[in-house]
């Protein structure tokens, strides 16, 4: 799976969680750019990503995430 395909798959998980697609997927995207991405949906999104890509994040890794770019980097590093 390349980065663009991964980005689309993550976007689908976000849409499934927040129940809308009223945001522009970009490397700079953060939770505050997406209406409804609160603490509960954050948990669902992270859990959804872990399930979808069969990866498990460490707490330190999650707390270092700054934006979509760092999330995609982290997932790709786990999938290698």
């Amino acid at each position, binding site marked *: 799976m390349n980065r663009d395909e991964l980005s689309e798959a993550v976007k689908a998980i976000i849409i499934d969680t927040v129940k809308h697609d009223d945001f522009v997927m970009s490397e700079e995207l953060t939770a505050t750019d997406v209406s409804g991405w609160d*603490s509960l949906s954050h948990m669902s999104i992270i859990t959804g990503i872990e399930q979808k890509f069969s990866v498990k994040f460490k707490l330190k890794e999650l*707390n270092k995430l700054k934006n979509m770019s760092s999330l995609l980097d982290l997932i790709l590093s786990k999938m290698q």
Partner: protein
Amino acid sequence: MTDTDFTIRHATLSDTDFISDAIIGAEKSGTTRCGLATLFGLDETQLKTYLISMLEEEIEGCELSIDSFLLAEKDNSPVAATAGWVENAGDELPSNQAKANLIGYTFPHSNLMTMRDNAHLMKGLSIERETATLQFEYVYVAPEARGHGLAARLIEAHIEHTKKTHREVTRGQLQVFCNNDNAIGLYERLGFEVKQSYRSSEDDVLSFLPHNEKLLMEILFQ
């Protein structure tokens, strides 16, 4: 027992047992329903174990950070606690993400799935925390220590501490369920005013949470 018998201090890792009880007590807001347990399908014993684990992670900048808590103690035993932190200070994560990461990392997967099924109950009750404000959470006084003004002393101590450490912060905010008349009265006497109210229209919310309506209250620092 006089009010001077109590001292205020910052919490340490040796206080996690009391703080976990304080979190559960405060979550109940005078009822028997602790949202952190009911929404995730946990009993309170399980929740307490996970709360201690999360506090021991020493993540900063949220309501589950050991650094956020001030305690009141008497004879070296804690009897009251309140969390307070500056939202999104420096390069810290927003507190809702820090808390979600902690819970997602600590709670069993099956309980996260239970929360996912119950998430609709929180629709309308999720209140965004404003950047660069002092946020309060989990104001709790043990039953045997009530009537000594400890909640007020803890809140005022947080404000005075924040004035020294974050001079740019000029406001404090807290969220309280509408059933908690005593707490709302206390906050009003301290100078908090209602900024907005939030309501869940879900029928079964009262099976999980203390009330279906919450207030966002704010105080401007003197």
